[in-house]
């Protein structure tokens, strides 16, 4: 019988939540790597038992863990992330130049075709790739060496490369996003990159429509329609129909267009999910009501999904990597909160229930649909 495996990264360890296809009864495993910040875990679509995990600590730095049995056992693999050549500098918060310094891995994206190949998005912003199952890592330095690199500036959470989207129809095309530089695309397998931020408008930067400098929080695509991208920017929900060459706003009737995650339904490419947050300083839902908003029209027209979610006195946040969808016939949606809840909906968002309520603050949620 089919099932799901939800991989949850928290500030103090990782948890693995499993259920059969009904998604009613859950088994909770963890904490794995107790005490460590688990920024992200993700499984390979080629081999679902191959998992990669980013484990980090303010004391002991970065480690990458790999599992070959679906998370039952783990092995530490390579943790040497060295920038290619002389790294140079980028803008610091105060506008001065600051050396590029590796801090941590924010996001791991396994290849769509090879279980031993995995990409890592890191802070300070750069893209690394391993082709030996995480043992060694090489920077795809064409991104960081883009002429705009010295002008990139960190967002409040650091200058992180947090989004990596691999185009299923074109192995040479990768989309990435950096806070607060913006979105970039390569069409030659990572050698060269172009900013894809035309149409974004961001108050608070000198040129609101600058080529780079936008705080992109997350990008999502439907795998069968990789030229259509949805973006949660710092403020604004954006849509591109030309692989990022141009964007237009689809925030529509949302109560707030600030937020972090964005996801696309597994079977309906025009169905999109966001979690509105009040503002960039008030990182909690408007009115204390935790609401996922769903658009079935590819944006602009949004409906609140509230059934089973707290509608009074709720002041948690949902971080950018903390929402995911499964691909069962009735698409499941999952998200985790900074309050330690992981909510699941097995009916496309109509109804929700908490799988767990009291984990450490959730950093990331990924889901694997298992045969």
């Amino acid at each position, binding site marked *: 019988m089919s099932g799901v495996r939800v991989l949850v990264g928290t500030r103090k360890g990782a948890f693995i939540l499993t259920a059969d296809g009904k998604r009613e009864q859950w088994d909770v495993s963890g904490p794995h790597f107790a005490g460590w910040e688990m920024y992200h875990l993700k499984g390979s679509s080629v081999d679902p038992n191959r998992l990669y995990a980013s484990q980090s600590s303010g004391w*002991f*730095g*970065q*480690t990458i863990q790999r599992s070959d049995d679906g998370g039952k056992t783990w092995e*530490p693999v390579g*943790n040497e992330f*060295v920038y290619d050549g002389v790294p140079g500098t980028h803008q610091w918060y105060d506008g001065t130049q600051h050396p590029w310094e590796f801090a941590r891995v924010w996001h791991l994206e396994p290849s769509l075709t090879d279980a031993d190949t995995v990409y890592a998005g890191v802070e300070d912003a750069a893209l690394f790739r391993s082709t030996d199952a995480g043992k060694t890592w090489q920077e795809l330095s064409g991104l960081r060496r883009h002429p705009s690199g010295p002008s990139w500036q960190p967002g409040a959470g650091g200058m992180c490369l947090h989004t990596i989207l691999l185009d299923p129809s074109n192995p040479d095309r990768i989309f990435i996003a950096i806070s607060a530089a913006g979105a970039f695309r390569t069409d030659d397998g990572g050698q060269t990159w172009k900013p894809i931020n035309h149409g974004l408008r961001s108050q608070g930067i000198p040129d609101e429509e600058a080529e780079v400098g936008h705080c992109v929080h997350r990008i999502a695509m439907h795998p069968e329609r990789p030229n259509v991208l949805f973006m949660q920017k710092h403020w604004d929900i954006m849509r591109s129909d030309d692989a990022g060459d141009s964007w237009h706003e689809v925030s529509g009737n949302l109560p707030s267009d600030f937020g972090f995650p964005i996801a696309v339904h597994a079977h309906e490419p025009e169905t999109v999910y966001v979690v509105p947050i009040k503002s960039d300083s008030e990182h909690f839902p408007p009115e204390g009501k935790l609401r996922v908003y769903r658009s079935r029209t590819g944006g602009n027209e949004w409906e609140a999904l509230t059934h089973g979610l707290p509608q009074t006195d709720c002041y948690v946040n949902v971080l950018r990597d903390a929402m995911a969808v499964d691909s069962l016939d009735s698409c499941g949606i999952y998200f985790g909160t900074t309050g330690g809840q992981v909510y699941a909906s097995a009916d496309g968002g109509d109804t929700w229930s908490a799988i767990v309520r009291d984990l450490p603050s959730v950093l990331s949620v990924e889901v694997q649909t298992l045969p």
Partner: protein
Amino acid sequence: MIRVVLPAHLRTLARIDGDVEIELEGPVTQRAILDAVEGRYPMLRGTIRDHVTLRRRPFVRFFACAQDLSHEAPDTPLPDAVAQGVEPFMIIGAMAGG
């Protein structure tokens, strides 16, 4: 036999039960000890000192014989009591919450 005490999280990472015991030929220094520990437990590379610069990570300290030796040069000989295995060389995660 030189005894090395690791912080709990690094013992877990390297699956070490108890102290690490190493034999060294030549001067007993921080660098020699760390080289030996990392050689035996490669997963600890980068967790105590930087991969490239080999500088101690900011929230890691080196104690021995009731002294903080963190700021000693890495090739400075350690106290005889450490070299003779009477006192352990302690790698400490700084006392800090979070």
